[in-house]
């Protein structure tokens, strides 16, 4: 298991190096450099070209491109992610401030969609062709086709503006509120995000469960006289879950970037809003770094998926 994991992690390194190079290229292509946003604008106006050049020299900005890239990469490994050109605040601080909100939202949505998606999908498969199956598949179709933000707008319109039972947006009324007090704020965005995610999991769980229900080992289990629910749950569901886990695993990257649109609709102060605002204001370093972290998360979760799949499915060998 340990060597398997290690090999997977090592296989990431060339990919990450290449992507980090692209990201650095993106930052470099943007006009302006560190000197422009490290010094306040009023101070910048009074400084001479020589002074600025001396400063660039001391910061290593006049080095060849490859040297600068390697220095940047070294800084990255030590946690120096650069600065936002708008506020001059370190990117690391900005991300640290916005990450909890995003994780709170996406974990809730992910748990909700996984639990209900698997539940509904398995139910549809067991009662294939019934009314329940048809209702669920209709909901699934809607979940895929309705734009997330539209569903968000409809919910805000109904529950916040007309019924007045939930807040229209934001994460809390005042700083320092407890989780329970913030719950009404979380409810709507998490459910809307969860709803559109549920559809995919549900369709997947249904077809995967149908597939496993037709297998020979199910007949064997029934022939041995094992009760029906045990056959379905222990024998059917276990193999059916593997592809579903893969799907859910590939959604982990959402923890950083997937809630972009929903966060904007509900004014949720997470990474998604930070990202969209950075794109709006052409804040390239911030855009690129959030992009970089989302890729990192995608690659890490693909490793986690591989390991969990190997663990769940006895047919996959680790070697």
């Amino acid at each position, binding site marked *: 298991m340990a060597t398997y994991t290690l090999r997977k992690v090592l296989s990431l390194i060339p990919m990450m190096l*290449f992507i980090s190079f692209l990201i650095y290229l993106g930052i470099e292509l943007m006009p302006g450099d560190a000197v422009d946003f490290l010094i306040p604008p009023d101070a910048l106006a009074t400084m001479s070209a020589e002074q600025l050049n001396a400063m660039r020299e001391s910061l290593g900005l006049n080095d060849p491109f490859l040297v600068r890239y390697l220095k940047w990469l070294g800084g990255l490994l030590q946690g120096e992610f650069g600065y936002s050109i708008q506020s001059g605040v370190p990117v690391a601080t900005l991300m640290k401030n916005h990450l909890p909100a995003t994780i709170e939202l996406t974990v809730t949505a992910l748990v909700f969609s996984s639990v209900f998606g698997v539940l509904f999908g398995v139910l549809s498969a067991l009662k294939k062709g019934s009314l329940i199956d048809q209702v669920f598949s209709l909901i699934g179709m809607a979940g895929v*086709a309705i*734009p997330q*933000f*539209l569903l968000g*707008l*409809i919910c805000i319109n109904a529950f916040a503006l007309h019924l007045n039972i939930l807040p229209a947006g934001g994460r809390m009324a005042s700083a320092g509120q407890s989780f329970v007090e913030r719950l009404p704020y979380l409810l709507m965005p998490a459910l809307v995000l969860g709803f559109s995610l549920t559809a995919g999991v549900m369709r997947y769980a249904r077809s995967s469960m149908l597939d496993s229900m037709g297998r020979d080992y199910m007949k064997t289990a029934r022939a041995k006289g094992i009760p029906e629910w045990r056959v379905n749950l222990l024998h059917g569901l276990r193999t059916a879950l593997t592809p579903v886990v893969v799907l859910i695993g590939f959604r982990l990257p959402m923890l950083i970037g997937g809630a972009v649109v929903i966060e904007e609709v509900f004014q949720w102060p997470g990474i998604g809003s930070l990202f969209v605002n950075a794109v709006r204001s052409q804040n390239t370093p911030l*855009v690129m770094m959030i*992009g970089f972290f*989302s890729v990192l998360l995608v690659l890490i979760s693909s490793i986690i998926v591989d390991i969990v799949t190997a663990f769940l499915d006895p047919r996959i060998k680790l070697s």
Partner: protein
Amino acid sequence: MSSLDRKMDRILKREESGKGRRGIKNRTLRKIFANKLSIAGFVIFAGILFMCVCAPLFTQYSSTKVDLRSILQAPSASHIFGTDKIGRDIWARILYGGRVSIGVGFGSALIATVIGVSLGTICGYKGGWLDGVVMKLSEVLMAFPQMILVLILVTVTGQSLWNLILIFSVTGWPSMYRMARSQMLSIREEEYVQALKAFGIGSMRIAFVHMLPNAIGPIFVNVTLSTAMFILQEASLSFLGLGVPLEVATWGNILNVAQDLTILKDAPWIWLPTGIVVTLFVVSINFIGDGLRDATDPSQIG
């Protein structure tokens, strides 16, 4: 078993009366027409498409004409879906906006398909270093979450209609490439390909003329599903104000004003009908895509 026997009899009878290639073609069409959902999907799709393309037949208003004497009017006989904040007719905006939205979605899907399928066909058939390079490139692009990659590219290229099509094509081709490549890899092992090689036919000719038509089913399905995906993405991006520039009417740009809570609450006619049209259109494309997938899948009896 008797029902299975009867089915077999029917299939046999059909095959006896059918004539070679035409029979296969008919089967695909017959399977599509047997699928009620895809027929419904096609009717909705064709209806919306026709109204958008022939927009001047269905509305006398222009999508951009500002009329400050009739701002924020509720639906009435003269403006069936009302007007927006600067007096533009919503119905006209939906129709003319549909042209752009559908155009962006379908155009991007088509470009992504041409790039992805050409590369996939060449690389899948020939393999070698080119395949390795393109494969790595597609892995890099696919490592980004879709929305993040699109927004990064928006930052780099700036906002415009053509840039958006370019960005969708760049982010869309890798999945097409993967699909075409895996199809080619499995077709490559067929005996007729060996025979063609033995005849001394050029490899590009074998790949594009003789092998590619056998992979056309999944490609069509992918074009429909990508079109739906790009239409949704355009709507989301324009809603955020980062897609097509605001002065161009698109479905996303009409919905954009709903970010304003007073409009959201008091003028639902601006955003709700547009939202319903987008959803209906995407549903109909999905139905067509599902129907196509079942119809072109030879393992499903029809």
